[in-house]
């Protein structure tokens, strides 16, 4: 008993966090599912004998598990599993790249606002509040309607509507960390403001940033599915989980499997990233989630 207590005390912060994370079963399951989805999308297409854009009019609407097509074929006779995997590449990449852009913008805005405070901080944070007034889907669609749809624009637009939450988190962190001894020490040491911001303050706020980043991926995947489903995101013949559901409603009666596979994939991916984010929050900062 005594040794057990002792060894817990001696755990490094990283080890303690890993222990807490391991106990969070939902988060672990999420991490495993994400790994499976990523590997499946990355390498799966090489294992399949079908091309995701190969049209075979003779084999339209083959139901799942009938013959060679495991998940069946769509209205043009394309293999649903191949499209699901290629769509996974697109949807997951958009989720991750949009998150990286949103984090970069959010961290920059939040760090500047939190560090300088005063008028600069107030203006930047009111800008954050103002963008948050627009319901995300409305803003995203309005912007998408004004630009040429495609992989790059969709990614950038999703990032443009998702950076505000991060900015708020970082601003609050930087504002409170700025007064701590190590920040004052760095200032006394003659470090430049930029160096203090991005080498001292932001790294110390890494826990909530990592949590926000994970939840951001979930949000970005969800948003991609919305714009693509509504026809303003990834354009056919390229597949994404969202645009695979584009025509699913028309064939709902005759070919429901077209709607099931991509929907399950999106829900699995988004749930997994959300669970992972929750688990990371509990593991990295137990104080953040007391109730």
């Amino acid at each position, binding site marked *: 008993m005594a040794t057990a207590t002792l060894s817990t005390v001696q755990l490094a912060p990283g080890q303690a966090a890993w222990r807490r994370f391991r106990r969070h079963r939902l988060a672990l399951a999420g991490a495993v599912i994400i790994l499976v989805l990523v590997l499946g999308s990355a390498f799966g297409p090489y294992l399949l004998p079908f091309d995701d854009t190969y049209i075979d009019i003779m084999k339209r609407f083959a139901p799942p598990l009938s013959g060679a097509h495991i998940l069946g074929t769509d209205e043009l006779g394309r293999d649903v599993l191949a499209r699901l995997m290629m769509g996974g590449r697109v949807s997951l990449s958009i989720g991750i790249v949009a998150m990286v852009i949103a984090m970069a913008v959010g961290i920059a805005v939040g760090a500047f606002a939190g560090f300088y405070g005063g008028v600069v901080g107030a203006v930047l944070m009111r800008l954050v509040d103002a*963008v948050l007034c627009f319901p*995300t889907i409305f803003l995203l669609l309005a912007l998408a309607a*004004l630009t040429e749809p495609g992989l790059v624009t969709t990614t950038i637009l999703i990032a443009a509507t998702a950076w505000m939450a991060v900015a708020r988190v970082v601003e609050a962190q930087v504002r409170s960390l700025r007064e701590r001894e190590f920040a004052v020490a760095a200032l006394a040491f003659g470090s430049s403001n930029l160096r203090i911001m991005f080498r001292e303050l932001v790294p110390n706020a890494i826990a909530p940033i990592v949590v926000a980043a994970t939840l951001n991926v979930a949000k970005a995947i969800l948003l991609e599915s919305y714009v693509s489903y*509504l026809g303003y995101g990834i354009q056919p013949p390229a597949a994404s989980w969202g645009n695979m559901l584009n025509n699913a409603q028309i064939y709902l*009666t005759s070919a429901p499997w077209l709607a099931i596979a991509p929907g399950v994939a999106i*829900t699995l991916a988004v749930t997994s990233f*959300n669970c992972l984010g929750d688990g990371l929050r509990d593991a990295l900062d137990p104080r953040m989630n007391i*109730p």
Partner: protein
Amino acid sequence: MARYVVNRLAQAVMLLVIVSGIGFAILHLAPGGPLSQFAVSGQMTQEDLDRVTRQLGLDRPLPIQYLDWFGRMLKGDWGRSYRDGETVLSVISSHLGATLELMATATIIAVLLGCWIGILGALRRYSLFDTLATVGAMIALSIPTFWFGLVTIYVFSVKLGWLPAGNRQTVGDGSFLDLLHHLIAPAMVLALVETAMWGRFMRSSMLEVINQDYIRTARAKGMPEWRILTVHALRNALLPMITVAGLQFPTLLGGALVAETVFTWPGMGRLFLDSIGYRDYPVVMGILMFSATMVLIGSLLADILYAVVDPRIRVG
């Protein structure tokens, strides 16, 4: 109190100015700017376009154009739809009722169900019910609303034949029961995410309250448990939910857009998508600004109401 309200109002006005600035910027991002519709139609020569540009004052400096545009927005002149020449405000208001009906129904379902789940989860923390509710909420927050709508249509309309697959009423019917029949599925779909959010917030609010000293005091003096829960715990746990209602509003509006699209519900969200399809920029911009203003007013009202019921807020 008055000071808090004035402060909060001033903040809201400032936000409205920034929001309008963003809206104006987006309008000028449109390919060809506000005149793109005429340029695309091909019926106007470059000289015509230049003349119209001058007549509409589009050659003036941007800040002046912005002030002009903002002034007209304030006066209620939001321009006219490219599609049928109706004023933007009348087009929006003719679709607003359907959206509000859907949003209100979904909110009522979500508040009742979500609060019930949250309270029960908090009282029986870590029970089977609580675990299921937590996992369920996580999945509900992650399901794409449109896909849940498709599944609902497949199950309840295609397979079971219980509910209509879309529209607000049967043509030629429109009785109360008919309207209600059409309302069930889209309201249910829209309520899913909201219920999950209300449940999560209610659970943590309730947990916070039942660990307070005054609850322990009430128990210590022998007050019956149901009275502790209703009079002391619930009343205090429900207060922060006012803020949740304000926070929910943007998600609710966005969800309504998606639910309306799937269920061909003739509301503002569907109008927005149709207008995007027609490149009807005045209506698109109008709805964008209108929804942002609604969100702004919603959070203002939530904050003020919260300050009214909870005196601690006014000081801060």
